């Protein structure tokens, strides 16, 4: 079943690039929503039916930690499956996000074929678990 995706990234051009790549690659996505900061992402997750979140780690906004807490499958909050994109290659950040439930961690800069392949795999894993 096609997924509803939220692209959360502070860069409007990165959000546009990812949305276009998803469309051109024909990934199983029914609609793309966008958020430019953590607060907006959190509100969209809480108020709409989001199946999957593509999250940049340097998303601005005061609610960033709150957002990560909400995404943690161990918490009792929304627990939306998510994948991370980031230019932060530190082992501490990667470990923190994977422990928080990230399905994948894709380093920026990334090529479009790599993004699409990794996102497709993550979406199929999520779909397979439902």
């Amino acid at each position: 079943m096609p997924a509803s995706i939220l692209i959360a990234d502070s860069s409007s051009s990165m959000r546009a690039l990812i949305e276009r790549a998803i469309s051109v690659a024909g990934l199983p996505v029914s609609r793309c929503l966008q958020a430019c900061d953590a607060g907006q992402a959190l509100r969209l997750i809480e108020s709409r039916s989001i199946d999957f979140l593509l999250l940049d780690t340097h998303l601005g906004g005061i609610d960033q930690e709150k957002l990560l807490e909400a995404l943690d499958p161990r918490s009792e909050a929304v627990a939306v499956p998510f994948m991370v994109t980031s230019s932060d290659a530190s082992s501490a950040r990667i470990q923190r996000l994977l422990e928080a439930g990230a399905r994948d961690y894709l380093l920026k800069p990334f090529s479009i074929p790599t993004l699409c392949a990794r996102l497709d795999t993550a979406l199929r894993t999520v779909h397979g678990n439902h």
Partner: protein
Amino acid sequence: MGTTDMQQTSEIEAALERLFHHTLEVMCFTEAERLPSLPAMGDAIEASVAFGGSRTGHLQLQVEPVAARSLTAAFLGLEVGHPSLALQTADTMGELARILCGRLVTSLDSSTPVEMKPACIGIRKPEKIIGQAFRAGAGTLRITLQMS
């Protein structure tokens, strides 16, 4: 500057240059040519990122408008004359600066996460200032890295 300091500066210089080439190739399908000296910049789109973590500092990317338009078009997969480019150019240069900054800082210490925020003004004297210039997308790009 001592030998260790010079060695460290040269490692940072090499990492910055390698990451700049890699970022432009992957995100903008563009090859950049390193210039032997830092040119004076006229009108330029300027993106700056302040960073913290194991290192603190400030990375500034200055790009001539013609190069910024060309790189943004390549980044978004649009024609150079596309009307939406005017709105996306500054944001795209900011994203390139953030990618470069994040990868550079975590390549120097891969154990500590990097924090990035809009540039702020401070009085701390940076220990290192590195400048590099490139020719890409029919224009000039200049990077300045201040780090302590």
